Structure formats: C-alpha cells, structure tokens
C-alpha cells in the first residue's frame, strides 16, 4: 500500500495484476457493460489511492477492502442510473475453471467463495445474489417476491451468518 500511495508504477501494476480482473468482473456483472466496468475499475484504484492511509491490514485483508470499495461504488452507480441492463448472473461454480489466468491468491479467494456459496441453500443463494450482485435492497426483494420485509431481512441475516461461518479460521492471506 505504501507503493500505491507513493504512486510507484510497479506497485500499481502489481495490485492491478492481482485484483484488476476480479474488480472488473464485479463491475461488469453489476453494471452490465465493458465501458462501465472499465470506468469502475479506474475509480476503484483511484479511491484506493486516496484512502490508502486508512487501510489497516490488522483489521482486514486488502482483497476485502478493495472489493468493498468496488461493490459500494458499483451499487451506488447502479441505483442512480436507470435503464441499466445486466448480463445473466453466472457464478464461478457454474462455469469451467480458467486455470493459469489468475494469481494464486485470487484462486484461494475463489475457493473461499465457492465454500461460502455451497454452505447456502439454493433459495439463500438466489437471495444473496440478488442483494449483492443486483444491488437490490431488502425492501425491493420483498416487494418483488410478495413476501414480508421482515422475512427477507431474517433470511439475509441467516445466509450471511452461514457465509461467515463457512470460512471461519481459513484466513486466505
């Protein structure tokens, strides 16, 4: 992070090599176009540079921090722009692996993601995916499905506790 803060070219490119692709993939799936995903990726790295002094490695992993920035920026944009068409959501365990394209750390993260998803029921997976990958609020989900808001909140909470427990004790960095 010190390298990023100083604008060191090698540090920026190393961070991009490690996280550029997952950030871009998240942007593409949430925002629906390559142009938007590229803009988001640039915004994420610029935001990371601006906030680099606030990153505390003792409180969390760099991947968590970057993906949280990316998700917040993408959801914020998604909710402000109308008419965004998004591609069909495809999760990693539904497509063949693409070995050799990602650094080991990202593959480990992907394993953790698969472990988390496999801890959920199909209904919970769909629910979490709509909130996290579609940017839907709990109220929007409740209205769409015609179920009480409290039920959606309870199910989201239950699902997230499972996701958290699935990787407890498995620090990936």
């Amino acid at each position: 992070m010190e390298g990023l803060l100083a604008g060191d070219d090698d540090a920026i490119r190393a961070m991009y090599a490690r996280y550029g692709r997952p950030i871009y993939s998240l942007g593409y799936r949430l925002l629906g176009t390559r142009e938007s995903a590229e803009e988001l990726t640039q915004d994420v790295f610029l935001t990371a540079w601006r906030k680099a002094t606030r990153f505390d490695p003792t409180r969390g992993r760099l991947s968590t921090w970057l993906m949280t920035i990316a998700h917040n920026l993408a959801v914020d944009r998604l909710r402000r722009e109308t008419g965004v068409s998004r591609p069909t959501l495809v999760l990693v365990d539904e497509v063949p692996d693409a070995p050799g394209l990602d650094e080991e750390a990202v593959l480990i993260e992907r394993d953790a993601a698969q472990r988390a998803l496999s801890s959920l029921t199909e209904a919970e997976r769909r629910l979490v995916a709509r909130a996290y990958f579609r940017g839907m609020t709990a109220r929007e989900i409740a209205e769409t499905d015609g179920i009480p808001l409290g039920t959606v909140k309870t199910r989201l909470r239950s699902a997230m506790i499972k996701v958290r427990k699935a990787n407890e004790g498995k620090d990936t960095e």
Partner: protein
Amino acid sequence: MSCGNVRERLAEHALGALPARDSAPIDRHLSWCAACRKEAGELQRASATLAFALAPHDPADGLEERVADVVHQAVERRDRRSHPVPRRSRLAFVAAAAAMLAVLGTGWGAVMAGRAARSDDAVLRQTIRNQSAVERFRDVLNTAEFGDPEGEVFLATLGPAASGGGGGSALTLVSPSIIDMAIVLVNGVPAETREHLPFTVRLRGDDGVVTVGRIEKGDLDESGAGTVMGEFDDLTGYDSVVVRDANGDVVMSGTMRTRADVASPSP
C-alpha cells in the same frame, strides 16, 4: 439506534441491501461502537468473499495502462499541491455558469412535481436531460476563459432517499492552482419534503466532513430547485454528497466520480 437494532441490519449493510437513508444511522453508530464495528467487519469480509464467486471476465488490454495513468495523474496533482502557489477564486464565474445549469435542469422539478402521474419514461428522459445539463456545465469549465490545465472535475448524480423524491447533481473542482469549489443543485424536491427545510449540504471525505451550504425556504423555486456552492482549500478525497433535512434525515445523496480533467475532457 441501539446495538440490537444495528446488529439486526448489519447483514443488509454488508451486502449493500440498505438504502442510503437507512445506512447513514448505522454508519454513525459504527463510528463509535467498537463491538458492532467488529461484527460489521466480519460480515463485510464475508460479503467481499462473494465478489470472487463471479465467473471471471477479461478486461481490455489497455485497462492496466489507464488505471496506472489515473493514479499517476492523481499523485502528480498531490505533489504539485504540496508546493503551493498563489490560488485565485473563481466563485463569481461559476455562479454565473451555475445559474445556467439551474435553468437547464429545472425540468426535473416539473416531472417530479407530478409524481403520481409520472411515468418511468418521463423520469428517464429528465434524468438524461439533467445529466446533459451537468455535462454542458463541465464543457463551460473547459473553456479558455475558465481553463485550468491542472484541475480535475468530479460529478455526482444525487438520488432521493427511499421514501423521498427529487434529484440533483453535484460538481466539485479540485485544483492545485485555483481554490477548490463545490456546487450542488437539487431539483424537484417534493412539497412534503420541503416542510423539513432547511437542508444542509455536506461533502464527506477521508479527512472528515465539510458543509457546502444550507438551503433555506426561500432558496427553492416553485419546482423545488435550488443551488448551493462554496469554496474550499482542498477537496481532495471528498467523494460523497449528503443532503439532510432539519431533522438530520438524509434527503438525497450521491457519490462523486472522476469524469474528466478540466483540460482534457473524456470523449
């Protein structure tokens, strides 16, 4: 909010499934409650893990260069700022340009005023028109009269809180050679929301919060449109805009995004 109430909503918070209006009080609670912050952090880590569940997509080859360029340019601006030069104000010029922008954007108020009858198409058309007005404002900033080769423009579209209405735009100008400034326009503020004036418009960033200005009852026109602006020493890193009513509730909010260097607008 109590710790119990906050913890009930931390899963939604971590997933981004809370509207801005509901997130703000939770963020305030987390700023002082270490126990809730710990749980929030754990859930945030869990939700970030989900991002890696997506099937990977390959970005274009040139993206790495563009990412590196964006960061390098930001570093250069910061370094120049650390060697300060006399900076001039531009408030008078921007006030005139903002008046133009306000006129361009007022149609939004008409659309939102008839909320019961409005169609999604009408809102979409006005959103595009509103954004177009902001883009034109940015073009004004690119003119020779106003030119600032070292400046950077950030734009935001403001969205209403979940139960509210109206919209708006915000623009910040960050420059090492000219005093930084922010201009925030709100449009189509519904009559029921106007009962809770004055509004306070703030920018939030790495170094805290600055107040751009207050919108009093007499500041809004009949369509619910109004403008505030202010000059600041340094707006670097101030990346979110929050408009609160007299009760402290969020009326609308948005996130600043880099759109173009003043001297070299994006195509």
